[in-house]
């Protein structure tokens, strides 16, 4: 038997099923070479395949909802369905008596019922107050998912409903009742001032004003939020979760459960899409408490509707722009006010506020600038992190504004941007000196690729 061939064939077969190495292996050096950080490594420029491509293609990647553990229970969360209310009474007795229901918990069962990446204003389960219709008010663990869902309908909740605050411009007004009274509705503020905008406007050939709005957007990861909790006899908790920021999540879970972080092990596996929506805890403390109460592993997976009303979304932003320009379209002064719809809870609003405010002037040289941004509470689904953190919304604002100005002045929209673009050494709105600035070059290259030959209005300029 030709063992060489047999081994070769075996290796080939194994080769097909093993994750491929990214580049040919370099022989281990005998002398220790000190790497030169300024030199490029051999891996750069190599063609490679993703390590998870193999398991994805085979359908073997295990996402959290693909885990089945012996004795596992399924949890479902009852949603408030009212935007703003006080919870008067929660009756879970009928649900608890249902065959197949093993445990029911409410907000009062959570040791520390508040968490959040910055402001800790979000409850695990609503306790005394409901702040948006997607708030969880009770959770059930049962032997099947359907029994858990049926049990939710047997839980009766009595609400004293309040008029919800839905328009962020209303939230901005001092006379509007505080969503989280006694806290104010404005829970974040940022102000950037540069130069003298009054002088800039006074010197302007023309002043343009416009208002833009963007809508609430949901990430819609194909994989819904999911987590699975198990305790061991030493009081150590293991959670498998779709959570992206597991270190932060661990801190929030420790806080809400009142246990040291050292007792918590979080395992995040391959996630089926995050895009910022899986940046903070959702079901984790719920399944942990249910698991503790039942002594069994508990898994909870969001339904697709829950993804829309009970998970974070992108901040809608109302943007008011006032820009003073020369006859040639050079920006002399810009004043911007942003109002971010900050939903029912803070979540990642502070980061979003910061980014939106710093970026809302656009990639343009502006000596005289005032950019003021507010984030306000409303009784709607919480707004949090979503790819861009405020940058996409303001981009819509400043670029639409630029197009309007170009059209009004009869200047080509590409030309007006080239006249105003940031350059090497330009100062940002916060007076940071910028390097490796390629705005002009990018615009010109893009224009070439798109075949931009100028607009009809540009010919007149």
């Amino acid at each position, binding site marked *: 038997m030709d063992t060489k061939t047999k081994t070769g064939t075996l290796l080939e077969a194994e080769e097909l099923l093993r994750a491929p190495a990214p580049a040919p292996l370099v022989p281990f050096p005998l002398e220790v070479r000190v790497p030169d950080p300024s030199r490029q490594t051999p891996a750069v420029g190599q063609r490679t395949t993703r390590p998870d491509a193999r398991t994805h293609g085979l359908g073997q990647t295990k996402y959290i909802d693909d885990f089945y553990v012996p004795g596992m229970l399924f949890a479902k969360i009852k949603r408030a369905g009212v935007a703003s209310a006080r919870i008067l009474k929660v009756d879970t007795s009928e649900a608890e008596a249902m065959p197949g229901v093993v445990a029911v918990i409410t907000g009062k069962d959570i040791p520390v019922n508040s968490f959040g990446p910055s402001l800790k204003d979000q409850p695990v389960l609503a306790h005394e107050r409901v702040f948006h219709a997607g708030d969880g008010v009770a959770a059930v663990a049962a032997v099947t998912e*359907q029994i858990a869902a*049926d049990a939710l*309908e047997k839980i009766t909740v009595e609400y004293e409903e309040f008029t919800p605050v839905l328009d962020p411009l209303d939230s901005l007004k001092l006379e509007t009742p505080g969503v989280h009274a006694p806290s104010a509705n404005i829970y974040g503020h940022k102000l950037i001032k540069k130069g003298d905008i009054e002088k800039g406007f006074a010197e302007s050939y023309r002043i343009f004003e416009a208002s833009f709005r963007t809508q609430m957007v949901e990430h819609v990861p194909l994989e819904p939020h999911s987590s699975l909790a198990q305790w061991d006899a030493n009081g150590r908790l293991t959670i498998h979760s779709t959570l992206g920021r597991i270190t932060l999540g661990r801190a929030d879970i420790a806080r809400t459960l009142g246990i040291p972080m050292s007792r918590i092990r979080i395992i995040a596996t391959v996630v089926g899409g995050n895009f910022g929506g899986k940046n903070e805890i959702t079901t984790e403390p719920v399944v942990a408490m249910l698991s503790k109460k039942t002594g069994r592993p508990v898994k909870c997976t969001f339904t697709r*509707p829950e993804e829309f009303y009970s998970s974070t979304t992108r901040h809608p932003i109302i943007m008011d722009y006032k820009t003073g320009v020369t006859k040639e379209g050079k920006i002399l002064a810009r004043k911007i006010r942003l109002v971010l719809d900050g939903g029912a809870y803070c979540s990642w609003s502070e980061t979003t506020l910061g980014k939106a405010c710093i970026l809302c002037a656009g990639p343009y040289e502006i000596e005289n600038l005032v950019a003021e941004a507010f984030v306000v509470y409303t009784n709607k689904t919480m707004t949090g992190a979503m790819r861009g953190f405020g940058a996409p919304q303001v981009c819509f604002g400043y670029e639409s504004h630029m197009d309007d100005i170009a059209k009004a002045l009869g200047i080509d929209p590409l030309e007006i941007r080239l006249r105003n673009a940031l350059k090497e050494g330009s100062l940002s709105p916060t007076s940071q000196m910028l390097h490796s600035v390629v705005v002009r070059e990018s615009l010109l290259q893009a224009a070439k690729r798109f075949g931009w030959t100028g607009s009809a209005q540009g010919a007149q300029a």
Partner: protein
Amino acid sequence: MRAFEFFAAKDSSHAVALLAQHGPKVKVLAGGTDLLADLKFAAASHHPRVVVDISRADDLRGIQMTDQGLRIGALVTHTEIMNSPIIREQLPALVDAAHTIGAVQTRNLGTLGGNLVTAVPSMDSGPTLVALDAIVTVAGPDGKRQMPLTDFFVGPRKTVLKSDELLVEIIIPKENVGKPTHFLKFGLRKGQALALVNVAASFWVGDVNTFKAPRVALGAVAPKVIHAPTAESFLEGKPITPENMVEAGKLAVDDAKPINDFRASAAYRRDLIAVLTRRALESAYQLHTTRKATERSGQ
């Protein structure tokens, strides 16, 4: 999904017997693309006690010419309509309409009968069939009855079917098989979208190039799929000209009662009715001239 009992019917008579036996809290399962999606999130009061699966009732399948006309079994899927040689040749508008429904997976499961019985006013299979004066056969414990499709629909998600009755087949009258017809749908996406407005236009070309037996059917702009009678009576006997098509489009708007909803305003829908009606008439005429040219060249 909440629990229910499940019975698989062997054929349509067995199905009717099962419906009569287990009603009235009974639902018919064909393709499941509406029913099962609905049951996943519906209220407890809405939930049936029994589901009767008719997907194996082969006597409800098939597309063939009969004495009455072109018969399409209620269980024929949208994909089967798209692939049917006789429909592709004689009534390509039905192929176009089927192609606008959902996506591949839902077209493979979804049935023509199911689409009609669910009776959503924006249904994509409705307008073309209404424009072709289709009739339907309903089977119940007391036997079979036939009626025009327009009489089958009562309102949004409501037909004349009782809980022990079944839609058996859809028939396009013999005299309308091959009638030049065109269907247009306007949705917010090219796939998996509900129609904001859908329109079917159908007419024979009469002597001296006039509209003969013109029909304009509109969907998503009234509680059910409707004819546009003002547009139809205007067109009858008139010369086939672009101006008359434009006028018919305007008249069709007056026959409709579109609403404002989160997808579109009534005003926008009115604009769509006028444009889509005109375009559907143009394309139906185009089909006629193409066929005539093909005939002449002896193919």
